[in-house]
């Protein structure tokens, strides 16, 4: 995969005040796990918990976690279905869950929880019990199956990809992209096609915008953009050192945003075009 490089002046990158047009660019919000279209992973190490602890955990889970993850842990308003989570499947008595609950996942919108240890133990017990129950259920109310998504036309999608959609300007169907349909399936492929979220442990460094910052004395620092707001810019250099600058003190910021076209494309797709391109990507194996 290659990126078209956009050289942006400081004026373009500073998005502080602009006309009415929706400002595009930037690199996504919290990553959405998309476990809904994969087979739920089985619990790797079966574990059992006392009924009283599960019951106490249910109360604590509903109060603290239920709005986002659902009262039954099968997904709520914004959070993923925990019964289909790989992390939960691999957890043994909270060895992975407890640190996550205590630290949160701020980038994904999950706050840290400073709950008493007994409460967290009970929540862990409840999550494992909810997963066991979900595994024994037929059907899943929030599921999106791969078969649900097969309404597009791969040939039409190929034409759109190479034509009106402009996808081929950045994406040559070669290298790893030539097998993208083998690496991602179903909803995960569709979400990645629309906007490849790029944060957290699964971030792809290649997709972080390459950036050159020129500071007051004329020195330049090159790296990948890891943070940007109106006042602050942070890049990580080739040696993985992070450098943070007050925007007001830097002379020039140059960079590309490899995902800009994806955000602009969201306002252009018809649902038919979206499903056609999806069908085309599915055929790339």
């Amino acid at each position, binding site marked *: 995969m290659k990126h078209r490089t956009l050289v942006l002046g400081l004026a373009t990158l500073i998005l*502080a*005040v602009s006309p009415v047009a929706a400002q595009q660019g*930037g*690199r*996504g*919000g919290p990553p959405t796990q998309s476990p809904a279209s994969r087979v739920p992973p089985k619990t790797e190490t079966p574990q059992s918990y006392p009924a009283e602890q599960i019951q106490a955990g249910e109360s604590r889970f*509903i*109060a603290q976690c239920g709005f986002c993850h659902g009262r039954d842990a099968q997904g709520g308003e914004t959070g993923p279905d925990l019964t289909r989570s790989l992390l939960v499947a691999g957890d043994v008595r909270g060895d992975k869950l407890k640190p996550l609950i205590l630290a949160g996942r701020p980038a994904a919108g999950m706050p840290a929880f400073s709950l008493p240890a007994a409460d967290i133990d009970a929540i862990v017990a409840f999550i494992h019990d909810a997963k066991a129950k979900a595994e024994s259920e037929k059907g899943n109310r929030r599921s999106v199956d791969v078969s649900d998504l097969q309404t597009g036309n791969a040939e039409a999608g190929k034409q759109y990809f190479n034509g009106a959609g402009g996808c081929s300007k950045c994406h040559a169907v070669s290298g790893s992209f030539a097998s993208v349909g083998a690496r991602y399936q179903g909803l995960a492929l*569709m979400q990645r096609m629309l906007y490849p979220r790029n944060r957290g442990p699964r971030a792809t460094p290649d997709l972080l915008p390459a950036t050159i910052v020129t500071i007051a004395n004329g020195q330049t620092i090159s790296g990948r953009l890891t943070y940007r707001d109106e006042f602050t810019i942070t890049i990580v250099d080739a040696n993985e050192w992070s450098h943070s600058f007050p925007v007001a003190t830097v002379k020039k910021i140059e960079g590309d945003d490899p995902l800009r076209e994806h955000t602009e494309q*969201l306002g252009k797709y018809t649902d038919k075009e979206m499903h056609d391109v999806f069908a085309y990507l599915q055929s790339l194996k």
Partner: protein
Amino acid sequence: MLTRSPKLVLSICCFLSSAAAQSVDPSMLLNPPADSWPTFHGDYSGQRHSKLTQITPANVHQITLAWAFPTNQTQSIKATPILVNGVIYITTPDNIWAIDARTARQLWKYTYPMNDGFHIGHRGAAVYKDSVFITTPDAHLLALDARDGKVKWNVVIADSKRGFWSTMAPLIIRNHVIVGVSGDFDNLPGTLRSFDADTGKPQWTFNSTPPAGTPGSISGGATGGQMWLTGTFDPALNLLYVGTGNPTPVLNGVARPGDNPWTCSIVAVNPDTGKLAWGFQASPHDTHDWDAVEIPILADVDFQGTPRKLLLQASRNGHFFVLDRTNGKSLLTTTFAAVNWTKGIDAQGRPIPNPDKEPHRDGRLVAPNETGATNFRQPSFDPVAGLFVVSAADGYGLYFFKDDHGAYGWAGADYDVWSRGAIRAIDYRTGKVRWSHDIGEGAGSAGILTTATGLTFTGDNGGNALALRTSDGTTLWHATLGRMNNAPISYEMDGRQYILTAGGSVLYAWTLPLPPAAQKP
């Protein structure tokens, strides 16, 4: 001038005795004094527009920290602080603190017992006479003694075992405490209730939708339409205005044909009886979780050359509505963010949903996303500038529904694709966006305060508190404090103007520095 007027002596005595009693007469809410922010929106209009003028575009860069109050919670502050009689009340789920506004000392703290309700946020308290009211995650209403935080009474608003919860800051109108609930995960009737502020006795219940299974219901079988944000009130018309939430089942529109009134609506209700005066649907037949609960701001301003009693709302579905609040008739409907789900606007000023953008088995790409073009974050209206300032977002989501998803609760699946936030100023006369100030990836979380000197206080997604120039959106001041999840307020105390902003779980008070001669060690 000194006089010996008995009348004056009498009035001073009365003032002192009432101050000593620290009792809040609810008529004060009709015209709040400068040293207060006595109700969720500051006053009944919902404008969140401070008349104070000490802090200006020319000096706002000099404001300095007066004090900070850490709540020491992991949950951030989402509540608007309430200030009366020199005491600030701030809340998080299950918790309320009374803080002395001059010294930032904690006077008392009350913590509600552990309970099962959703602890996702809390919007604030309300005050009446010597009581402070809060709602609880398990949908109770508590009256606390303002002196010490002791519980005076505790009543059930709605049954949390059925799936109700509450985050709402109550609205006081005369002796009515008006409270709503939330409940998207179950098919529950939309419920707004009034309780006697003195006794806690129920006064009335307004249902935006009837209970599930009600024969011949006007809602077309829909439940939901919860009223989970504090409304506004016009004393002259004696009407309470409140936004209603999405219908349930949420994404399954097949199970509830028709427009589903009064979900996703603005309703005008008599605060003495709970009877509906009129309703206006912001989203007929919603299938995207776009509550129309966003604050219905009331303004008495000119519209097309005529003085009007207006109601203004920037709605989660991406539309800006101007209504005549005497009768609910539409005067103007525009969009203020990315919108791709409509086939136009109907004769009543309502967006016409495009059936192709309803959730489908194969997924539909819809703008706004579920979080919406705006949401709970409180807007502000500057009546002089004629600008409605709102925390907006352009976003896209994927929406799915198939029969397997059923007809209970969420009944579907949706996924955020991408969004980006901006503070936007809408000219209410045209409905057009005057300026847009980018605040970063994702939707914002901060509400807005405007002031009479042309300042807009809010926060961005990077944890910066901001002061913008209201006329053009230029940044005049910022402080990196942690993410702002509430709306700033302003008040005057001992001759100085203060701005209160939350950053994470800490409340910060800002004011102009005193000249060196006035500072004491």
